[in-house]
C-alpha cells in the first residue's frame, strides 16, 4: 500500500462554481485510477460524481483528464501515471473533466454535441445493391483497411484534446472524421461521395492541422491523424478526377 493524493477539479451545478478538492487514498500501485475514485466516493465523499461502467476500457464512459492527459480512469494504473512524490508529499493524481465539453457536475461532461457530430457523417453502412444470399465477401486485406478504425469506443478523448475543436465548436472533430473513414474505406460501402461531401465542408476535414493530440490521447491507440490524412488524400484525388 502506498499513499496517493487525488487532486480533483469539481463543479457544483447548483452554485455553478469550480473548486479543487484533495483526498488522501491508500492504494496499490497496480490499482486503477477508477478504483481510487470509487474509494473516495464510497468512503470519503459520496457526492463525488463521475461516469463509469465496464471498468476495463471498452464502454468509453470514464474518459477524463488525468495528470494533464485525456485517459480512461479504468485503464490507467497508478504506477503508470503517478506524479513524482517527495519525501514529504505523496504522489499526486490530478483529475479534471474532459476539456472543451460543457461540465455538468464534477467530472461529468455533456457529450450531446459530440454524439450529434458523429451523426453528421452518415455513420452507417450504405449499400443499396441487392444483398447476396450469404455474406458479402470481404478479403482480409480489404478488412485490414478498417481494422483500426472499428476499435473506436467513442469516449471523446480525441475530440476533447483537439485545439481546432477548442476554437471552432462546429468542427466535426477527430472522432467523427474517423467514423467517416470507417465507412468510406469499408469495401462493402457505396456512399463514398456523399460522405466525402459531408466531411469536406468549412468545418470538416481541412480544418485538421495534424496536431496529433488525438493520437496521443486515444486510449485504443488509434492513429486518428493518419486516418484523417487518408481521407484528405482521397478527397484530393476525387477533386482532381472530376
Amino acid at each position, binding site marked *: 500500500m502506498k499513499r496517493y493524493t487525488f487532486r480533483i477539479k469539481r463543479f457544483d451545478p447548483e452554485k455553478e462554481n469550480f473548486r479543487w478538492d484533495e483526498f488522501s487514498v491508500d492504494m496499490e500501485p497496480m490499482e486503477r485510477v477508477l478504483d481510487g475514485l470509487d474509494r473516495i466516493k464510497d468512503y470519503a465523499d459520496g457526492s463525488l460524481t463521475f461516469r463509469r461502467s465496464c471498468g476495463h476500457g*471498452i464502454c468509453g464512459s470514464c474518459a477524463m483528464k488525468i495528470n494533464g492527459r485525456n485517459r480512461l480512469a479504468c485503464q490507467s494504473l497508478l504506477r503508470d501515471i503517478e506524479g513524482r512524490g517527495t519525501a514529504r508529499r505523496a504522489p499526486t493524481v490530478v483529475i479534471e473533466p474532459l476539456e472543451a465539453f460543457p461540465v455538468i457536475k464534477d467530472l461529468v461532461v455533456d457529450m450531446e454535441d459530440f454524439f450529434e457530430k458523429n451523426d453528421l457523417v452518415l455513420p452507417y453502412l450504405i449499400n443499396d445493391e441487392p444483398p447476396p444470399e450469404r455474406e458479402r465477401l470481404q478479403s482480409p486485406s480489404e478488412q485490414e483497411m478498417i481494422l483500426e478504425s472499428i476499435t473506436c469506443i467513442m469516449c471523446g478523448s480525441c475530440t476533447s484534446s483537439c485545439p481546432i475543436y477548442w476554437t471552432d465548436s462546429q468542427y466535426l472533430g477527430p472522432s467523427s472524421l474517423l467514423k467517416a473513414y470507417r465507412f468510406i474505406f469499408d469495401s462493402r460501402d457505396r456512399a463514398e461521395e456523399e460522405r466525402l461531401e459531408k466531411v469536406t465542408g468549412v468545418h470538416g476535414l481541412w480544418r485538421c492541422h495534424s496536431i496529433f493530440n488525438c493520437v496521443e490521447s486515444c486510449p485504443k491507440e488509434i492513429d486518428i491523424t493518419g486516418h484523417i490524412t487518408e481521407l484528405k488524400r482521397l478527397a484530393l484525388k476525387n477533386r482532381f478526377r472530376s
Partner: protein
Amino acid sequence: MTHQFDTVIIGSGLAGLRAALEAAGAGNVAVLSKLYPTRSHSTTAQGGIGAALGNEEPDKPEWHFYDTVKGSDFLGDQDAIEIMCGDAIRAIIELEHMGVPFSRTPEGRIAQRYFGGHTKDFGTAPVRRACYSADRTGHAIVFTLYEQCQLKGVKFFPELFVLDIVIENNRCHGVIVLEISTGEIHIFSSKVTLIASGGYGRVFKTTSNAYVSTGDCLSILYNRGIPLEDMEFFQFHPTGLYGLGILITEGARGEGGILINGKGDRFMERYAPTIKDLAPRDMVCRAILTEIREGRGIDGKDYIYLDLRHVPKKTIKERLPEITTFCKTYMGIDPSEQPIPVIPTAHYAMGGIPTDIDGRVLMDEKGSVMQGLYSAGECACVSVHGANRLGCNSLLDTVVFGRKAGRAIKEEIGRDTAGKNKKEDIVGARHAVPLLERSKIMIDSILKCNGKERLANIRTELQDRMMEHCSVFRDEKNLKGLIESIRNLKERTKDIYLKDKTRKFNTELIDAIELNHMLNISEVIASSAIERKESRGAHYREDCPERDDTSWLKHTLAFKTDKEIEFRYKPVNITRFKPEERIY
C-alpha cells in the same frame, strides 16, 4: 414531463437495439438507457456469436440444437432452442449485411472458431461455430445495430434511470424514469414496453459485469408481481483475470489455449476427456475450483493458469488483441510469453423474466400473458440456456429473440386502430401519475437519509456473502445463512447515509436505489437455490450432488408475497432430445 411513444424499449444493448430496429417499422420507438447507447454492457462481449454457417468445416443447425440442449443440462426449452439455432444462420448473414465487421477467412467469408460445448455430430469433436470480430464481437455488433437504428429514426434517450414500471389491470402502460442529469422525473407512456435491461452480475464480488448490471428492472417487475424464472442458475465464466474478474474470452481456448494447474498438468483432460478445455463453462469452473481446493492451484494459491504460450503469435495478435491488451495493462504480462492467472468470474444470468418465444412476459406457470409487456436478452428467460449457457449463444439469443419480440410488437402496434391508441395513451398516463408520486416520495426519502450506514459497506458485504455461499458450490446450510445475512443487510439499508443531497446527476442516489434492487434479486437467487435440491448445470449443491430428473426437470418460478417467497414450477418443453447423462 410525460412522453408518449408507441413502443418504449428499456436498454440499449443488443436485444434492445435489435428489437428497436424491427419495431421501428410501425409507430415511433424510444430507446431508454442508463448509459449512452454505445456504452451498454453488450459491447464487452468478446469471443463470438454462434451459427452453423459451416464456413470453416461442415456444420448443421441440428448439431447446434443438440449442443445447446445438452449444454443447458436439459433444462432449456427445446422449442425455443430449435428456433434460435434454426434462425442463427439468417441472423448472422443479416448482421453482416448491416455492416458488422466480422473477421474473415482467406476467401473473404465470415471466419469461425472453436468455443466451449460446440461440437460436430452430436458430441464427437469440437466444431468451429463461433463467428467473431477479433475479440470485440459485442462491440462490433452493438455499434452496427446502433448505427442502423439511427438510420431508421429510432429516438434515443440516454442516461435515464428506471424508477418504476406502470402495471395496472394486467397491462403495462409504460415506465417512470429519472433523468439523471437534471434529477427530473418523467413518465414514458407507451402501448408496448420491452424490457431489455441486461444482467445482474454485480451482486457477486468477482464479476465480469459492468457497474450498471444491477438487475433494476427485474427487481421492479418482481415487486409488481411478475415471477422470476430459474434464478438459481447463474453462470460463472472460468477465465476471469485473477483479482479483477475481467473477462478473458473462451475464444482464447478456442484458439488453442489450455488450462494448467500448479503441477503443470492440463487438468481438463481428466474432467472432459473428449473436448477437454472446450467443455461447457459450468464444468470447467467446477474443475478449476476442485483443483484449487485440492491444493493444485498455482503455488498452492487460489488461481490457475490459462496458457497461450504455444499459440502462434500471429493468431494472438490478429484474433485476441483486446485480451492481450488487458493482460498487459492490468497484470503487466504478455500472454504469448507468460501464462495468464485466472479464476472463475460471475458472468451471466440464465434466469430472468419469463417470456414466450415472442418475448411476451408471462405472469404464471400457466403462461398467462401480461399485456403490453415484452422482454428479451439476458434479463429474459425464454428459456434457451436452461441451467447453463454455452459460450456465443448469448449474442445469438439477443439478436434472434430481440428481433422476434420486435416483430410481435410491430404486429401489435399495427393491429391497434388509431382511435383506440389515443384512448390507451391517456389511460396509461393516468395510471402512471400515482406511481410518479410514489417515485418522488421514494427519492425524497432517500435524499433525506442521514443514518450511520455507508452504502459501500452494505454492498461489499452482500457481494462477499454471495460469492462465498452462492457461487459455483452451494449447500443448504450456507444458503440459509446467506438469506439471513441478506435480510439483515436489507434492514441496515434503512439507516444509510447520503452525502449528496442535490438533484442533478446524483449518482449516490442511484447507487442507493441499485443497492435495494441488488438485495432484492440476491434474495430470490439464494432462495431459489435452496429450493432446488439437486445439481444441474451451473447450480451445484454439494449436499445434493446428483441431477434428479424425476423431481427437478422443471423451471422454478419465484413470486413475491407479503411473507416468504412463493415457489411454483412449470415443465420443461422437451421435443427432440431426451435427457441423458452429460459427459464430454
